[in-house]
């Protein structure tokens, strides 16, 4: 059991010209769950990367058991039992879950060959020991985000880390997965592990953390026992304002006679054609309407996103956009006939991390921004400023996206897709992913503004709160089928949606029959 102290850590990022950390401090007590809280860009992740050996501090000290240590790389930190699960999961595609868990310490047979059975056995043992129910033989690309997270946690446990740092571990998980994660974290704590979670969600912090440190603008505001601080005081500390109770949205009379997006009996087979990933899906999204689609992981949300993003073709059925067959390639959202698309995978699909913010924004419209094949700087500048203003991204147009924090990348993508003039159709997948409270409020406000201007919004989200907060109607997917479509009124409760998501369709449900459009 180790205690850890971070003292007076400074970190300057010359490329973006910002001080990420100014005299930041943190102390961890062994066997406790410690939350590091603060807004997007407060320096939480940078501080934790320093503890995990991924970044080097410009000045300051790291003390483990009272002894000053220097980490040149993550292995140095791992040798002292410190490991980190990143916000953007680092599972390696092309390798199995087991190979990912054991990556770097694989058992081997003669001639440096992998002991493939041994890898599977060790990984499965490790998963069983800590109560994870994951099939370790599966390929990493086929895992859901929740499972990828499990793989990463298992990887640290396998390497005998006893200080586990989790960067916003709940931001991509469903309620059920979050509960499972918290159970696991409590078990790990009981077995003597020290856990650090980076978070900005007050409810979660109250539920799981023993102690917490608050950060703002790269500085430490202090450490508290969670029991000593009220939720209100905590949210006050994080964003300087109390969290107001959630208001149900005012639903508008949607243009029911003007379906913008129509899905007609879509079927999509699963990977090996044994199962169907989506079965007989029909619904339409009308003008001036948010249709929220929610589901647990692996129930078809991802496939629906892939279909509408043009990555998959339906095996039968059709999709129409404004009465015409759905385009194979979308146009930029601000163009006539364009579609806004915020992917659930913000780094892989939503942005190109090695390019500048401006390039990430203008790349959607080659004809306009690249007349004669060359970039028109002034047009690009204007559009970029417009897009980053929408949600006030903290970055310069020329900064590389890889230097932005996760929340800022998400805000950049949201701003790009939801800037003026808004698209007729917006496909928003997990739009609140990794946003802090203040940014989330602004994002939701902007989404509703866009709706009020007449856009049809299809919201694909595994976050029930998000769906309840934004949707006019809510569709629930269970095992690839529509379990129900309900209007967002007093009857649309979290419990009821949760039951639908798990396939518990009670008899007295008065749901709109699936497939029947309401105006028919």
């Amino acid at each position, binding site marked *: 059991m180790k205690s850890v102290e971070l003292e007076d850590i400074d970190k300057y990022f010359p490329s973006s010209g910002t001080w990420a950390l100014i005299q930041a401090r943190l102390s961890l007590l062994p066997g406790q769950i410690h939350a590091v809280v603060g807004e997007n860009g407060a320096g939480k992740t940078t501080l934790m990367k320093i503890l995990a050996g991924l970044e080097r501090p410009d000045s300051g000290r790291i003390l483990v058991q009272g002894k000053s240590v220097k980490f040149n790389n993550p*292995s140095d930190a791992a040798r002292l039992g410190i490991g980190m699960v990143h916000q953007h999961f680092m599972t390696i595609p092309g*390798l199995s879950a087991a190979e990912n868990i054991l990556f770097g310490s*694989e058992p081997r047979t003669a*001639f*440096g060959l992998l002991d493939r059975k041994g890898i599977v056995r060790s990984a499965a043992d490790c998963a069983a020991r800590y109560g994870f129910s994951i099939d370790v033989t599966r390929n990493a690309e086929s895992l859901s985000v929740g499972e990828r997270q499990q793989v990463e946690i298992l990887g640290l446990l396998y390497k005998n880390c006893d200080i586990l740092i989790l960067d916003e571990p709940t931001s991509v998980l469903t309620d059920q997965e979050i509960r499972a994660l918290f159970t696991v974290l409590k078990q790990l704590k009981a077995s003597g592990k020290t856990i650090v979670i980076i978070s900005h969600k007050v409810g979660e912090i109250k539920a799981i953390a023993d102690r917490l440190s608050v950060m703002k603008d790269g500085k430490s505001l202090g450490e508290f026992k969670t029991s000593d601080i009220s939720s209100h005081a905590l949210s006050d500390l994080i964003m300087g304002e109390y969290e107001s109770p959630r208001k149900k949205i005012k639903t508008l009379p949607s243009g029911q006679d003007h379906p913008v997006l129509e899905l007609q009996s879509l079927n999509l087979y699963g990977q090996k054609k044994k199962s169907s990933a989506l079965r007989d899906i029909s619904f339409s999204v009308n003008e001036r309407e948010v249709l929220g689609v929610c589901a647990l992981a692996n129930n078809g949300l991802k496939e629906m996103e892939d279909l509408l993003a043009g990555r998959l073709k339906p095996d039968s059925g059709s999709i129409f956009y404004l009465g015409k067959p759905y385009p194979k390639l979308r146009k930029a959202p601000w163009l006539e006939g364009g579609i806004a698309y915020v992917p659930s995978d913000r780094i892989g699909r939503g942005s190109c991390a090695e390019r500048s913010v401006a390039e990430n924004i203008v790349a959607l419209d080659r004809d306009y921004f690249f007349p004669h094949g060359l970039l028109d700087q002034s047009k690009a500048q204007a559009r970029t400023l417009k897009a980053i203003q929408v949600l006030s991204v903290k970055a310069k147009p020329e900064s590389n996206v890889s230097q932005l924090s996760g929340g800022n990348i998400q805000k950049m993508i949201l701003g790009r897709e939801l800037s003026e003039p808004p698209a007729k159709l917006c496909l928003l997948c997990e739009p609140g992913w990794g946003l802090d409270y203040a940014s989330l409020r602004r994002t939701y406000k902007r989404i509703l503004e866009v709706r009020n201007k007449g856009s049809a919004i299809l919201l694909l989200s595994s976050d029930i709160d998000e769906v309840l907060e934004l949707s006019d109607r809510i569709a629930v997917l269970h095992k690839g089928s529509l379990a129900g479509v309900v209007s967002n009124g007093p009857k649309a409760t979290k419990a009821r949606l949760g039951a639908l998501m798990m396939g518990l369709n009670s008899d007295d449900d008065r749901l709109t029959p699936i497939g029947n459009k309401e105006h028919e």
Partner: protein
Amino acid sequence: MSWLDTATGILASALAAMTPLLLAAAGGLFTELAGMLNIALEGLMLAGAFFGFAAASATGSLSLGILAGALASSAIAWLYGSATLRLKANAFITGLAANIFAPSITAVLSASWFGTKSVVALPIPEPARIFQKSFGKLPLLGGVLFSQHSLSYLSWILAAGAALLLYRSVLGTRIRATGARAEAVAAAGFKPDSYKLAAIVLSGFFCGIAGASLSLPLGAYVPNMSSGRGWIALVAIYLGNRRPGRTALACFIFALAESFSNYAQGQFGIPSEFILAIPFAVTLVALSLGTSVKSE
């Protein structure tokens, strides 16, 4: 000559023509799976052809020739890799440099060692057709398979070895992980660049043997004798979707085109320039078909 003899003849020479392609593609797979575009395959092959031939003629041993070709090419690959990874030079430019460097250094050394910058033909032992006597008389495919010289069999073993190394060994797993997600390799405490360098050197090793398999059976070194095979190997990798088995199949198709064009010269009264362009036309068509199938 019956059509059957013609067909088996074309097949047998296709297998021979596949040898350098298969080896170069196996080498290219290492860099490709490590996440790099290795445009230096062509130059590395040429270096292997020259040094392999020079060593074989000096020592009178084919094995030493193969080894020398592999090592010389590995050394050039190491230079190319170091410039790219350590000195952070643009991989395209250093690759181009390697492709220009190889024919120039061989020309200089050829002039000083053999007194000529053009074809060098010296007596070296011929690669044995080791199964010819025992199985070579088998009908049809038997004759095709067992009439090859030893370097072809070596190439099959080495190609299988490359696949084994990539998919079943610790080193290969790290190389593939580097290509798939370098930051995860770094986060696990390893240096992605050292795996990239290893992949480049391995690609040099295989390309060196590929080059030796051109010059040794011919008993001569001809300037620029790789004649685009490094590039075709690269195309085979893309067509094979970076999988070993499919890449080998693509190599066979290209080799078949090459062997057919050799046979067809002077057969149909078509100008030989057109006939000789067949392998390249096949490459072009295959590449465009391959990409359109993949984007479906």
